[in-house]
């Protein structure tokens, strides 16, 4: 059976959509202890409502000598405790594609994290 051009195109679009959806996921780590750092000015309407969220969306370079990447959590006004309460790592189709095209040398990093509210 021969597939015409439209059918091939449709198949490609469906496959691409499937790939995009299946490669897009989040992993969230949340400490059972500690209160999340609040943000009274936040108007978010997602999982992080009322939390002081720090978002990192960047591309890192990995070479033969550096096989990993460490993000340092420092004490800042958004993270006065310098300790983590919640971390969310998100993988997307774009991340997979970038990694594939650059043969693993460039990696997209999309992270959200919330620090622990300081206790007094």
């Amino acid at each position, binding site marked *: 059976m021969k597939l015409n051009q439209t059918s091939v195109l449709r198949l490609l679009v469906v496959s691409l959509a499937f790939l995009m959806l299946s490669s897009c996921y989040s992993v969230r780590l*949340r400490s*059972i202890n*500690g209160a999340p750092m*609040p943000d009274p*000015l936040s108007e978010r*309407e997602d999982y992080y409502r*009322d939390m002081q969220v720090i978002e990192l969306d960047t591309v890192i370079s990995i070479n033969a000598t550096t096989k990993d990447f460490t993000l340092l959590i420092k004490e800042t006004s958004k993270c006065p405790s310098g300790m983590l309460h919640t971390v969310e790592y998100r993988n997307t189709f774009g991340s997979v594609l970038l990694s594939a095209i650059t043969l693993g040398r460039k990696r997209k990093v999309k992270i959200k994290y919330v620090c622990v509210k300081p*206790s*007094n």
Partner: protein
Amino acid sequence: MAKTTPFPKDRWDTLHNNGPFDLKILYVTELEGEGNIPVKTERYNDAAQEIRRLIKETSDANQGFRAYGSRWSMSKIAHNKDRMHYNGFMNLHIPLTAADRHIDSPYDASNLFFFQCGNIIKEVSQTLGAHGKSLKTSGASNGQTIAGCISTGVHGSALGVGAVQDYVVGINLITGPNPEDNIYIERHSRPALNNEFAAKIEAKVIRNDGLFNAAVVSLGSFGFIHGVVIEAEDRFLLNRYVKKIDRSLALELSDTMDFTNSTFKIEGETDADGKPLTPYHYKVFINPYTDESEYVIEAMYKKPYALPYEDPFPTIKTSIYKDLIYLLIKISEKFPKSIPWFIKKLRKTILPAVNEELTGTLAEIFWDAPYQGPAFACSFGVDHKDSSKALDVLTKLARDEGPFPGIYAMRFVKQSEATMAFTKFPITCMIEIDGVLWKKSRKLISLTEFSRRMIEVLQEAKIPFTIHWGKNSDWAFPNLVNDMFGDAATTWKQYRSALLSKEMAQLFSNDFLDTIKLSEVEEELPEDLLVSIEP
């Protein structure tokens, strides 16, 4: 010096999106660093000074002022149209010693803890846990501030304990802009801390049962709640069971609270004679749109703390999927008749899994509740003897005039001594309707209209009731608070009028208080309202 940042804002909302409401200024106060003021009472007093400054600033501008913490209330109780104060960063814990205990105190010194207003329940529990202690009860989750809990009457379903305010034994209020407007109140019949401690926090002491009972559930309007003293207890475990039992048995237990002579028996939860134990916690879940012969119930039994026990978190962390709930709202607005079908299909995500069993501490079981989108909650308190009758009236309303996108539950709470506690019956059954917010449509009446009808049908059925201060209702319903509380409402207003100057009574009022007619200042007051009575 504690630092406050004023943010010009024109709107404010609750956590569950029950607004938005107008606002002019949002104050956010942060404590001075520990390095600069190492002594905790001095940091606390420094913060009190800052609050008094903000009260003066607001008073000079002839505006209103209201503190809030986690904004979990769904009613407008936490809102002021002028200036609001976020106190979540004011989370000191001041350790108490035996030397701070009042000589006539009935409380064990090791069970007394002093927390600043902005500590959330989770922070309080962690501090207590580090001392081998626990709260006696909490709400269904742990994100409310301790001051917010007591102002609105947050409760769990602890049959023998009461609500959060019922283990508060001292309150520190800031009632105005002057140094003398710093007051520490406790019951004269059950004092907790001595005058020397009150001097450390630079507060004037008033020991007076009547004043304390009025101020402990203050609806946020007896001044700024700066700190509270709570009575904790030794850490304990709860064995939690979820069962499906005959509807008639679930309701009979609700009406009688007689577990000992019932057929509801859980293996291992019996006394030496094999009779069923009375649980620490009992909750009934009801889908109002089905005529099921069995109801899902949740029962918890209190046990001494002992290690090891199985990790409860894999079960506790399960929650509703937000996207599905959003879908439900949208469909409900257009096709309300689909709601019962949705609730039936979603029962596995909305209700706990039947035959689920776990063991954990109070803090573990009533753990974090992630934000799940716009929500509503209506909650009526009735005498537990009226619980099945009231449930019948309210579920009939949902079937006849709904359906509405929510499910029902019943929890049971011991009577509170607080003047305006909605848990005022010997054992109060809180009938709750929780669900997702919807917009009024041609086919579905609004939440306020639904709330009004609930009040009307309970009145028609002649069932005395109260309403949870922090939940949705038709708060403008005529004579509502007087019908619910009668003379207690007048007593509460008298204590408030005695404690606050007219100017401060206005400053600490809000639209919610005006609506329910509790902001009125009483002119004729008995003379002894503020008298400190020595035990």
